[in-house]
């Protein structure tokens, strides 16, 4: 009896395993376009790419007409909580089990890295709008990465270079302790050294630090000319707050290497005015930008960050390409995306290079004084436009996927 039961059990086992193994979980081009937006719904970066990123993608789909290849365009969104493991498992569920074709939004380089890994295994396009690390088009580049909006090289070239050239030679870094901060610090340090400057010290603060006092004290003791904040979002705001409290702002220059409009709005104008920074987009730059930004503001309740605008622009370019090639097959779509120039209110003199880097003109701006501001959103004076080729790193031979 026992042996009979055993052999039945083993027969079932073998049968089930065999069937299961023969089934392949590969998602195929099905003609239905489904976009996933991963954002930070409640964390440090929620203001710069949270619900607003979903809104931007919704607007892109609506403006496109809501349908492509005869099917309604679907949109799903989720909260990455800025954790790579959560992002990775959501992405895996989306592309392997729910037929998602591309994932966008993607604030925080750690999150984007994790998602990009899942996507490349499944041959899905990653539309990175929110992250800054340049690794997606250099060290960890792959044929399916698309990096929109900005990156650390553009920030360093835009903000750091002119400061070193003006004679600020000694730099101290307060760096966000994850891939983005590390990348930004290393790229900026390189620029500083090339221009004859010196990095006198650095300190790394965890993402989401609220009390920067001990880091500010280290900066204060370093004797640097400039304290560079290689962080973003509320980290920048909190670091500046501590710097003010301990009188650092009276002794040294502070350079915010990545400042989003929302953060610039939140900073005390008395401290922040005159600070110069680089951004990929400013809502008030021309009529087209103002038009879109006003529509966005009506729906979202605040002016757009460069990431919001980037999500809209990247989504639109993706959908245009799907329509043009008549398929949601990633290989065909990405090829077309790289062949045609994106052209909208966001993309100025833009081009999606073979390595997946979207190169476009960047803006060098200065935070306005309180007295110069006409309204809440009126925060920047545009000093100059940095041409894309000047701002971004040249294409790396090993990442040339043409």
């Amino acid at each position: 009896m026992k042996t009979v039961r055993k052999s039945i059990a083993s027969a079932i086992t073998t049968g089930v395993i065999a069937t299961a193994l023969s089934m392949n979980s590969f998602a195929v081009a099905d003609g239905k376009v489904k976009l996933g937006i991963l954002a930070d719904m409640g964390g440090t970066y929620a203001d710069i790419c949270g619900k607003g990123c979903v809104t931007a993608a919704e607007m892109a789909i609506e403006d496109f007409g809501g349908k492509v290849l005869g099917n309604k365009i679907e949109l799903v969104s989720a909260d990455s909580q800025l954790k790579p493991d959560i992002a990775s498992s959501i992405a895996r569920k989306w592309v392997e089990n729910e037929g998602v074709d591309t994932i966008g939004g993607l604030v925080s380089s750690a999150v984007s890295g994790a998602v990009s890994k899942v996507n490349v295994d499944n041959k899905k396009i990653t539309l990175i709008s929110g992250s800054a690390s340049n690794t997606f088009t250099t060290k960890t580049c792959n044929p399916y990465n698309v990096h929109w909006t900005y990156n650390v090289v553009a920030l360093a070239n835009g903000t750091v270079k002119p400061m070193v050239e003006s004679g600020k030679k000694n730099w101290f870094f307060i760096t966000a302790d994850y891939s983005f901060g590390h990348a930004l610090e290393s790229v900026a340090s390189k620029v500083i050294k090339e221009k004859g400057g010196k990095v006198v010290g650095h300190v790394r603060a965890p993402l989401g630090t609220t009390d920067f006092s001990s880091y500010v004290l280290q900066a204060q003791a370093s004797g640097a000319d400039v304290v560079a904040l290689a962080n973003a979002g509320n980290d920048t705001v909190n670091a500046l707050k501590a710097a003010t409290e301990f009188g650092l702002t009276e002794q040294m220059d502070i350079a915010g290497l990545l400042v989003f409009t929302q953060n610039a709005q939140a900073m005390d104008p008395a401290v922040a005015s005159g600070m110069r920074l680089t951004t990929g987009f400013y809502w008030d730059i021309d009529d087209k930008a103002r038009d879109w930004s006003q529509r966005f503001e009506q729906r979202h309740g605040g002016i757009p960050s460069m990431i919001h605008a980037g999500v809209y622009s990247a989504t639109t370019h993706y959908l245009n390409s799907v329509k043009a090639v008549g398929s949601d097959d990633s290989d065909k779509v990405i090829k077309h995306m790289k062949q045609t120039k994106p052209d909208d209110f966001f993309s100025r003199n833009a081009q999606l290079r073979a390595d997946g880097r979207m190169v476009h003109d960047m803006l060098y701006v200065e935070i306005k004084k309180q007295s110069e501001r006409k309204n809440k959103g009126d925060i920047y004076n545009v000093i100059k436009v940095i041409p894309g080729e000047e701002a971004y790193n040249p294409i790396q031979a090993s990442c040339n996927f043409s």
Partner: protein
Amino acid sequence: MNDTKLNLILLAIALVAPTIFYPVFLAKILCFALFACAFNLLLGYAGLLSFGHAAFLGTGGYVTGYLMINTGLSPELAIILGMIAGGMLGAIFGKLAVKREGIYFAMVTLALAQLVFFFYLQAPFTNGEDGMQGVPRGAVFGLVDLTNNFAMYYFVLAIFILGYWLINRTVHSPFGQVLKAIRENEDRAISLGYEVNRYKWVAFIISAALASLAGSTKALVFNLASLTDVHWHMSGEVILMTLVGGVGTMLGPILGAGLVVTMQNYLSGGELGNYIHIIMGIVFVVCVLSFRSGIVGQFLKFKRNNF
């Protein structure tokens, strides 16, 4: 219904499940079920509440992940080494923690686990907040390619069964009986001549090693080892799983893990993502106030009283 029959039915369900459900999700449940069973060995059978078991889950994941990325070992070897590393860490934790009892034991394990958390946060090989990304799944014995999700699932199932069997053996061995005696009345066990702390220590090591086994396997399933697995929230989660399912029962932790993971899976990614901690907290409070023996525990009580 006897235990063997029940186990066979469960096995049959586990074998067919991936044809209906997403295999990665099922594999995740099995990993956490093993983790909870390992934890339960300590809480349910030795009466020790560890608030630091995340350290072992995470260690298994990081060690296995590191080996898979850097050495090209086959996955079964990387998993075994991850388990050994976790067991060794468990030996250190255990040595320090068994000196204290009850609440102190919980706090000491919690604090030690936090030490481990900061170590992994700062150690370069873990990539800190970014996590160890792109851990390859490899091929078992160089033969079965685990990149196929179904193959991965059955591999995890095999590991789970092995771990479960080991825990079952431990609990029903003379060693397990002594542990239960210590749980029930430590002073009596001492007066009977048992070296109580030694027994506790060994139980701690076994539990830690099996928790690491769960972590190692999880790292392969998700191609990723991250700080979430070492964070003290994870230590709390495993307590919840065990408590909901039933402390000191063999099947309770499995059921608890299944419920908690399903709930998280359902909530995460949706608008309700934020509610997860609130719901977990409420489940905790309800369990402690009125449901202390968990679902399986209550069921067994009910069966005993009525049949």
